[in-house]
């Protein structure tokens, strides 16, 4: 076996529920929809699934941030597995994938069902709900340092990093806005996307400021929905329906201060060392990447990743995205080809994996990138959290 365990694994099937701003079924039903579709896509049945993983695991706090965990899905599908894990302390949302790679390498399982379920659209209709702060309750944990300062949403806290980036890089709002405009255009070609009508740079500039310099269109859109992928051991993957999408390399490190206030460089967040680790585990280079599905909880994250993956120089993203041509579907590096979380819906990095596989398997329909893309870089992020994967279709 290769010394890097991820190279012995591949994505073999993908599934996605209906994505909406208010579901007509439960979060668990959405998760079952996505899971069954992923199994069917891979050519697997329930009895073939011997591992389950999710991130961050069930949070029964009414926020909809993670409404379904491993136990609920296992019982719903009556799966019989050798291993399962769902926990939030991991290298961002892809922690579930990295855990699965380890479990496969340890011989605990062969086909892992990995899922992410969001029910935030419904949650926000019922009550004030966000992931950072509850009013009237004393706050523990890493965000307690922000608690007294009206840090009600991630937007405020991320805007701190974004503003420093803007200050240091000199990026202009009309350059930042290319991320949102490009993704809305891609979403217009994705029948499952939440927002499909095009927007212009002028629309972006006219959109409300949430927390300076973040505009409304820089923020992802909360949804109800679930995505699932199957990660299989390579020898199993080679005998399944789809050409395996190999996990060529991962970045999972924590070689920096894991703190939402003290992280080493606010303006780049935790990404540089995570990207560096990913590149250290492959012979491929940034120039070999055909498409990129970069985390876009806020468009700033996508801009960060363009630099930190090495697609452009530090503070060169403003020139790279200027005019939007390079990151468009026809460009040299198509980015967030399904509309991403900004316009497609906030599936929290698992929409990105689903879209990566969709493109690598040539299923993109009207938004399919020409030239048979084979290599995709994908990432998660947010402050001290970051994870990266390089996916390659055989």
């Amino acid at each position: 076996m290769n010394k890097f365990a991820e190279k012995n694994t591949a994505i073999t099937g993908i599934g996605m529920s209906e994505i909406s701003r208010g579901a007509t079924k439960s979060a668990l039903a959405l998760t079952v929809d996505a899971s069954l579709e992923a199994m069917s896509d891979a050519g697997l049945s329930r009895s073939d699934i011997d591992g389950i993983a999710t991130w961050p695991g069930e949070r029964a706090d009414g926020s909809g941030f993670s409404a379904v965990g491993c136990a609920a899905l296992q019982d719903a599908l009556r799966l019989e597995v050798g291993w399962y894990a769902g926990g939030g302390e991991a290298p961002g949302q892809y922690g579930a994938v990295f855990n699965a790679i380890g479990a496969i390498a340890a011989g605990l399982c062969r086909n892992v069902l990995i899922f992410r379920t969001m029910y935030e659209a419904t949650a926000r209709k019922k009550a004030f709900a966000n992931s950072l702060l509850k009013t009237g309750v004393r706050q523990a944990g890493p965000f307690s340092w922000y608690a007294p300062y009206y840090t009600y949403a991630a937007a405020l806290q991320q805007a701190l990093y974004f503003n420093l980036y803007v200050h240091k890089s000199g990026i202009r709002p009309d350059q930042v806005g290319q991320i949102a405009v490009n993704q809305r255009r891609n979403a217009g070609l994705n029948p499952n996307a939440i927002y499909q009508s095009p927007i212009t740079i002028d629309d972006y500039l006219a959109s409300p400021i949430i927390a300076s310099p973040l505009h409304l269109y820089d923020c992802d859109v909360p949804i109800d929905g679930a995505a699932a992928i199957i990660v299989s051991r390579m020898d199993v993957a080679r005998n399944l329906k789809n050409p395996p999408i190999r996990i060529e390399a991962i970045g999972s490190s924590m070689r920096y201060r894991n703190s939402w206030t003290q992280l080493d460089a606010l303006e780049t967040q935790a990404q540089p060392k995570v990207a560096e680790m990913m590149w250290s585990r492959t012979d491929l280079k940034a120039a070999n990447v055909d498409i990129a599905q970069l985390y876009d909880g806020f468009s700033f994250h996508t801009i960060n990743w363009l630099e930190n993956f090495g697609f452009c120089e530090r503070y060169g993203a403003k020139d790279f995205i200027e005019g939007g041509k390079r990151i468009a579907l026809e460009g040299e590096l198509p980015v967030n080809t399904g509309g991403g979380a900004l316009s497609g819906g906030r599936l929290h990095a698992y929409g990105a994996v689903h879209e990566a596989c969709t493109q690598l398997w040539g299923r993109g329909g009207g938004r399919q990138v020409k030239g048979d893309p084979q290599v995709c870089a994908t990432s998660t992020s947010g402050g001290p959290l970051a994870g990266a994967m390089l996916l390659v279709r055989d």
Partner: protein
Amino acid sequence: MDEGEITAPLRTLPVVDYDSEAFWTWGREGKLAIYRCDECAYFIHPPVPFCPKCECRNVSPHAVSGRGRVVTFTVNHKQWVDGLPEHYTLALVAIDEQDDVRIPCNIIGCDAEDITFDMPVEVCFEQVEDLWVPLFRPIAHS
């Protein structure tokens, strides 16, 4: 609306433990408490009972000058909950004694549009229940 008009009852408070108690309570005496290594004088924040520089276990809260600089900031424009002013500033302030100690805060005592990167600020406190919440304001020109 001036940030100074934010009313105290809206502030959400942190859970305070052994290590963070000084930070949230020394404001009673007008002091900003930051953990410092008793051996090598490295400031450790958030406060933990271990010095990552010299591996010393003897650390204790130390009253710093209360002066610092604005590392970064954002002006909020969305009314997340009733009673919040439309505009207020969230910032990270680095203390003068050690630039990698960053304290989240609201900047008060000036208009949001007058806040700049690296602006010198000094601590002040707002009592909320049994805690003294550090805030920062511009240092008046001498």
